[in-house]
């Protein structure tokens, strides 16, 4: 007896496709301790590498004595720049058009720079041996302030660039100058200011912070001297690009280099770049002909892998007396450390910073960013943001608040007056971005209603009127637009490789499927969400769709996972690969049902003959036919590959509101409420989206309320362990309320825009907005992060309001 066919709705639920809060496929291994991270890798004959690092920030290497270390039992080699020179591997290109020392070449440029490596039988011996390597330094004057670095007599940081007047991004004005990058129209912006009824300006500093994923960086490199093959397991967000760079550096043909990113314990941009440690482990494996493992410790991670931010920003707005913004000017001095190693698309030395006009219809704008060398760690990663969007959003949101304060207009109202309106999309900003879609006013009103904004303002007014109130109340409001989905190859590339992404789908004869991707998850749940896209496109249950990533020997070439690009770019590649399969499947179904393709309808998981529900072929039926007896003249099999080069970025947006209470006696801040509305277009898995938002908000909370990387004048990093560097625990992390609207991207095959960074980008200025709001009645327009209790207490004291 045939079982009755479930109706379409039941079948759709069984698919667990797009829109379903499907539980994650990847969890089974993680909750049973069967994750497979780089440090879990073991290989026969594997040796361990450790790194000798510079204790000073700037100095000449006078002498390195390896003898004592080499004499230790279990030590196989000690290598310095001198050993790497014959291989031409002592310097390497950075992602930003600069070069960086792999091992310090005669000079150290920042504290904890890599000076030598030791390879030993186990990690304990290696750790003993690095202590035995004697390095003699001649100290040089240290430059830590980027403004001082640009003074005429400032010490020369990069002697290797002596006399070089052209940088990767134009003329160099000074020996510590990297680039000056201009965007927008200066003349138009200047004219707007000349004619303005009102202008405001504000200086602000976005401090240097560290992404600090819980898993540090590391790799296991294994060179086979007989076959000439190199296999490297690596903590990388972009394994294909790593393979290309490793091949270019080593001379090993790319086809003989295999890079595998296994499970990755968080990335947040920290694992995009190529660090000296990776290169050293690979070199050591080539030199010794044995597998070599390197895993950095937490101090090394915080002090030597890529930091983020460190932007000194001046913003200016021109406006009419009723608050309509007519012009924006921005000047930034960006501290990029000792080597320009920012992870930005090649043509954008300041990344996507020109989203700095935000969600507002600003007719004239100009931004100028100056990159500067100092004796700090290089890096400048896009930490949970799309290439410097965090800084841009912070600046414009602060400036709009400053203007609102000057004009005594409510911060919600001034945003209403300046929003790009729904009917203006697609909207081209003064910086040349074409925003794809958006509906800011609807989202704003939804948030204001949800939190009873009027009621909050009334409560605040009552508190301000009460001289005995123990707290200052602040309301932060941010209305941001992100730019993600990097990016269109015509404008975005990394080292000359276009920023497309890719998917290959194979349907097996029995109707299950495998998809291989150019991206790599670091916790975003790709195995689940990607399968859901395929489930919806092809009518195959998510349960039987396998998603594989991270192995360059099997996955199609892709630029990886960072900048919230997985769903906007790779998600589109999946949909389009699936549609190629769908088109072929339809031909096969028509052949099987002996009708024309035009006579078929698609319903959830099957092709049906129009007008006759009893005549249909499921995707599983078609798959079997494709391998068993395809129509005459048709190639057997059911698979497709798609390389997706996006026509444009996507522009998710959000409206965030925070309510804080600041203790007047201690400066401690309680986050009473945080309401986050995000619009990331089509939502694939709401459970996963909410999880990503929670995570991003928590990292934003950490940056705004506690994180900093303080250096002393000698270039010592004061605090490079988790004892000093603030990662919030459950106790201080606020409760998050999430909400959404849905405005699909018109140019994306499924309308999805990407979400994971939005909460980070949007929340940080929201916290500052709330803190400053608590002081705004005292004439305070801005307070720099981090808003820890001491700094806030000082602000209370400075304004005469502490108890």
């Amino acid at each position, binding site marked *: 007896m045939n079982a009755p066919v479930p109706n379409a709705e039941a079948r759709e639920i069984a698919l667990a496709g797009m829109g379903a809060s499907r539980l994650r496929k990847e969890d089974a291994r993680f*909750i049973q*301790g069967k994750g497979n991270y780089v440090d879990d890798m073991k290989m026969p004959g594997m040796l361990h590498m450790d790194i000798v690092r510079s204790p000073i920030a700037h100095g000449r290497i006078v002498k390195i004595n390896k003898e004592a270390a080499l004499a230790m039992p279990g030590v196989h080699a000690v290598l310095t720049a001198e050993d790497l020179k014959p291989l031409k591997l002592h310097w390497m290109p950075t992602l930003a058009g600069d070069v960086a020392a792999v091992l310090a070449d005669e000079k150290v440029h920042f504290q904890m720079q890599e000076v030598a490596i030791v390879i030993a039988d186990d990690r304990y011996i290696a750790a003993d041996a690095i202590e035995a390597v004697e390095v003699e330094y001649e100290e040089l004057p240290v430059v830590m302030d980027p403004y001082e670095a640009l003074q005429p007599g400032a010490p020369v940081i990069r002697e290797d660039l002596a006399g070089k007047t052209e940088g990767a991004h134009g003329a160099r004005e000074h020996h510590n100058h990297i680039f000056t990058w201009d965007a927008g129209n200066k003349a138009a912006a200047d004219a707007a200011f000349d004619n303005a009824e009102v202008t405001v300006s504000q200086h602000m500093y976005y401090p240097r912070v560290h992404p600090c994923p819980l*898993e540090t960086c590391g790799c296991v490199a294994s060179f086979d001297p007989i076959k000439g093959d190199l296999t490297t397991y690596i903590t990388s967000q972009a394994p294909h690009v790593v393979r290309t760079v490793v091949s270019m550096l080593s001379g090993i043909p790319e086809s003989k280099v295999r890079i595998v990113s296994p499970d990755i314990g968080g990335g947040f941009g920290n694992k995009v770049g190529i660090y000296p440690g990776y290169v050293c482990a690979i070199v050591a494996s080539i030199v010794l002909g044995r597998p070599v493992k390197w895993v950095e410790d937490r101090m090394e991670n915080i002090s030597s892998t890529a930091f983020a931010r460190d932007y000194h920003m001046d913003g200016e707005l021109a406006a009419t007396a009723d608050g309509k913004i007519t012009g924006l000017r921005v000047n930034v001095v960006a501290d990029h450390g000792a080597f320009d190693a920012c992870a930005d698309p090649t043509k954008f030395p300041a990344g996507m910073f020109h989203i700095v006009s935000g969600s507002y219809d600003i007719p004239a704008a100009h931004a100028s960013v100056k990159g500067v060398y100092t004796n700090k760690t290089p890096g400048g990663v896009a930490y949970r943001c799309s290439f410097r969007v965090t800084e841009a959003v912070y600046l414009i949101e602060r400036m709009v608040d400053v203007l609102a304060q000057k004009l005594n207009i409510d911060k919600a109202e001034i945003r209403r007056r300046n929003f790009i309106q729904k009917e203006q999309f697609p909207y081209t900003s003064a910086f040349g971005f074409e925003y794809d879609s958006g509906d800011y006013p609807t989202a704003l009103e939804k948030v204001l209603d949800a939190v009873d904004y009027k009621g909050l303002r009334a409560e605040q007014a009552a508190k301000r009127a009460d001289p005995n109130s123990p707290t200052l109340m602040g309301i932060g409001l941010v209305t941001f637009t992100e730019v993600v989905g990097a990016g269109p190859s015509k404008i975005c590339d990394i080292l000359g490789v276009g920023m497309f992404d890719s998917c290959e789908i194979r349907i097996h004869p029995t109707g299950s499927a495998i998809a291989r991707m150019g991206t790599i998850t670091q916790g975003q749940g790709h195995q689940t969400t990607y399968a859901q896209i395929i489930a919806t496109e092809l009518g195959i249950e998510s349960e039987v769709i396998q998603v594989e990533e991270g192995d360059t020997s099997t996955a199609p070439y892709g630029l990886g996972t960072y900048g919230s690009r997985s769903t906007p770019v790779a998600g589109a590649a999946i949909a389009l690969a699936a549609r190629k399969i769908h088109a072929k499947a339809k031909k096969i179904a028509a052949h099987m049902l002996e009708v024309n393709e035009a006579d078929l309808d698609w319903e959830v998981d099957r092709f049906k003959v129009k007008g006759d529900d009893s005549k249909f072929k499921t995707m599983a039926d078609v798959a079997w036919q494709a391998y068993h007896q395809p129509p005459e003249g048709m190639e057997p099999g059911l698979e497709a590959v798609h390389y997706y080069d996006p026509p444009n970025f996507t522009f998710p947006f959000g409206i965030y509101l925070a309510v804080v209470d600041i203790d007047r006696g201690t400066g401690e801040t309680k986050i009473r409420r945080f309401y986050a509305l995000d619009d990331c277009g089509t939502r694939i898995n709401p459970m996963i989206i909410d999880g990503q938002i929670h995570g991003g908000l928590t990292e934003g909370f950490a940056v705004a309320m506690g994180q900093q990387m303080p250096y002393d004048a000698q270039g010592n990093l004061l605090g490079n362990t988790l004892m000093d560097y603030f990662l919030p625990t*459950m106790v201080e992390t606020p409760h*998050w309320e999430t909400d959404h609207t849905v405005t699909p991207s018109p140019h994306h095959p499924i309308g999805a825009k990407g979400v994971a960074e939005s909460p980070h980008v949007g929340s940080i200025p929201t916290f500052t907005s709330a803190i400053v709001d608590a002081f705004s009645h005292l004439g305070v327009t801005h307070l720099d992060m981090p808003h820890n209790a001491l700094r806030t207490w000082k602000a209370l004291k400075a304004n005469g309001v502490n108890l």
Partner: protein
Amino acid sequence: MSKKLITVTINGKKEERAVEPRTLLVHFLREDLNLTGAHIGCETSHCGACTVDVDGESVKACTHLAVQCDGSEVLTVEGLADKGVLHAVQEGFYKEHGLQCGFCTPGMLMRAYRFLQENSNPTEDEIRHGMSGNLCRCTGYQNIIKSVQYAAKKLQEPVTA
């Protein structure tokens, strides 16, 4: 360095090994016994990714010596499920989306396992404090709290045959 013979019961199985006195418990588990569930995140006891259970207490294995465990009973994430049936805390983390990258998860689970024996019916505030020795960078904690609440509820249900 001379080695010392230790006997440790790990996930119910007796293991006898010679270790250097300076060997950290987390390295002993990961390198000598191939139990890679406990992870190394900070080496200073702050992140809790290496949390395991030693003689009925949560211990951070990155600052605990293997020789300190001579004669002890150690439970790691690999021993949490019983004959293939997930423990309530494992089920809770799965059902409530209490993890993303999974790196902190084994430590979180082991702490939750012990915490719920210390306090079987905790309030949200008690969970926040009881679990505050474990850091997570991906989840924002809200779902971890829900995961622990799920497990607490499940553990209080009467056992059915």
